[in-house]
């Protein structure tokens, strides 16, 4: 029942500008993921939304109410912290009832909500334990449970999986996705892991150095990245960026060769940055022929897939997805070609996407 509106949000710590004007419209019931490299301001933005730190400039609205000066506990927001932040002197049951009681709910209602959360998060057997007697995954579930019993209008999660091991991570990630489907409240989820972002999000906010680079669905981000930052941040292995020159329907690199990429950008800049994902490239063995000349650096064999890294004649490295049965000798000469209409084009000057 809440939509959020962030208008020109800025944050300054003493003399350091951390957020430089964030504008976001988040819809009701949406699961939005903030993703970006370490130190880009994700946690800072989340804390501003929670009300834990004051907003330096700009406005934050929830469901049509301006929230800048509302105390954190009055915003109808619950937060799951990276370190879980459970109260060490209370058992699991007390941890979960503490906030619910403070909301003025009667006992029967509190008990009902705890029973529900305990069932949903499989906490029944743990209710009498102290946090230090729980495993990381269990603490995580308690932290989520504590947030859920308050039935918040907005749920915030700051890197909730970063203290878990890899196996547990994907398990809890599925649980969070399922919880969101079942409960369906507006949720903001912070991570620096793009796989988490892609798998969980309705929409993703890609942040970099205190700015929003792009806000869109995982598919939009992957298929039409707005700039070179988003292009290289989303997708693994990374998209390779090549400085190339346009010549008619061909693009090429001096001394390396040229290819026909299919669709070209509408703008007629000569120098462009061409972005190619590993699955947009094909390599064929041999010195001569169509395409860019390159040499094999090494092959990463992953069982169902293999990635071959090749170095172009101009020294640039690109990754290529191959079938697992292809084998290239190290240093073998190859020709690099592009699949039609798979390349992304960015302006050399602004690094922004050049639409077709």
């Amino acid at each position, binding site marked *: 029942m809440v939509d959020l509106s962030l208008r020109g949000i800025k944050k300054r710590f003493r003399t350091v500008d951390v957020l430089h004007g964030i504008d976001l419209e988040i819809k009701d019931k949406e699961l939005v993921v903030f993703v970006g490299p370490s130190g880009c301001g994700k946690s800072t933005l989340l*804390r501003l939304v*929670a009300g*834990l730190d004051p907003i330096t400039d700009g406005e934050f609205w929830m469901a049509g109410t301006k929230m800048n000066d509302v*105390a*954190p*506990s*009055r915003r109808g*927001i*619950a*937060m799951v*912290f*990276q*370190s*879980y*932040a*459970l*109260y*060490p*002197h209370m058992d699991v049951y007390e941890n979960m009832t*503490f*906030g619910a009681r*403070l909301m003025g709910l009667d006992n029967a209602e509190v008990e009902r909500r705890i029973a529900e959360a305990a069932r949903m998060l499989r906490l029944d057997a743990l209710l009498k334990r102290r946090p*230090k007697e729980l495993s990381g995954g269990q603490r995580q579930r308690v932290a989520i449970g504590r947030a859920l019993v*308050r039935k918040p209008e907005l749920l915030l999660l700051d890197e909730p999986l970063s203290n878990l091991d890899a196996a547990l991570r994907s398990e809890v990630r599925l649980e969070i996705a399922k919880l969101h489907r079942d409960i369906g409240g507006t949720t903001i989820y912070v991570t620096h892991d793009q796989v988490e972002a892609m798998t969980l999000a309705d929409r993703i906010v890609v942040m970099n150095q205190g700015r929003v680079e792009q806000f869109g669905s995982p598919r939009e981000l992957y298929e039409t990245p707005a700039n070179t930052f988003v292009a290289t941040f989303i997708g693994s292995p990374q998209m390779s960026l090549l400085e190339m020159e346009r010549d008619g329907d061909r693009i090429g690199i001096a001394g390396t060769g040229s290819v026909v990429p299919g669709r070209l950008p509408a703008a007629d800049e000569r120098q462009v940055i061409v972005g190619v994902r590993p699955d947009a490239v094909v390599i064929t063995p041999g010195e001569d022929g169509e395409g860019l000349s390159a040499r094999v650096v090494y092959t990463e064999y992953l069982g169902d897939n293999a990635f071959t890294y090749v170095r172009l004649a101009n020294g640039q490295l690109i990754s290529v997805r191959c079938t697992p049965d292809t084998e290239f000798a190290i240093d073998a000469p190859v020709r690099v070609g592009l699949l039609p209409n798979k390349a992304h084009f960015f302006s050399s000057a602004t690094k922004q996407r050049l639409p077709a």
Partner: protein
Amino acid sequence: MFTKQLTGRRLWIAALIMPPLVFVCLFIVYPIISAFAYAFFEWSGLARGDFVWFENFHKVLFVEPFASRTVNAFSHNVFVFFALMVFQNGLGFVLAYFLWRELPGFRFHRIAVFLPVVLSTIVVGFLWRLFFHPLFGPVNAGLKALGLGFLTQPWLGQDTTALWSIVFANAWHMVGFPTLVFLAGMQRIPGEVLDAVRMETQSEWVKITKIVWPLVAPSATVVFTLLFVGAFNWFELPYIMVGLEGSPHGSTDVLGLYFYRTAFGNQSGAPPDFGAGSALAVLIFLFIAIVAGTLTIRMRRREIEL
């Protein structure tokens, strides 16, 4: 080979333990045992008389005028303990909270609070005796300057205010210690735990009573125990500020002063009574040891891992 090594190791351990052990025996265990022994004899001056069983204990506890003096002194120790618990430890907690929250001026106060702790008790006692002087003391002068002249008192000279004044001086002197311990306890609370509370309530009272205090309480064990021991061993400050008699009219008399007068005599000519003094010392020691021991064990159990 093996036994040889073992003996070598044992020798080392013995060699390292012996000196402190000898020291402790000579200067702590032996005097305590002697006091125990002295308490069972009759004394005239420094000459030991007959073995009298529990007569000395009986005297200080049940025979007048000794008994009522003992009770009077003990009740003052109890008062001092509770007064300091409230004013010294309570104020220490409040100060620690303000320093921890970094309220305006916290840098100055952080130092101001801890400075008196490093002064010796002798100096503090002397200082406050001057401050409380009815004619020349800054306390009364200050009250007058503030237009509160009607509040001026002979602070140390009347039985309604004397003990309070010494307690005040003690709190002023030592408040930095509980402050330091509480502050350390507060600084150990993880920031995200405090953020988590802020998400659930904006009441400072709930935050302090339900989160901060329970998490700091375990580190208060040592503060409480030391205060207890200090309050029942109280001697230097009253001795310097009001003298050996607990004047005026015994209103500041405490066990420490009373023991000293009994065992070693006083200026007004009462003869030293080593037996009764030792009996008092033994009783004080047992009382402190038993209560402080129980207190420590009980409170240790509540300790919480963060």
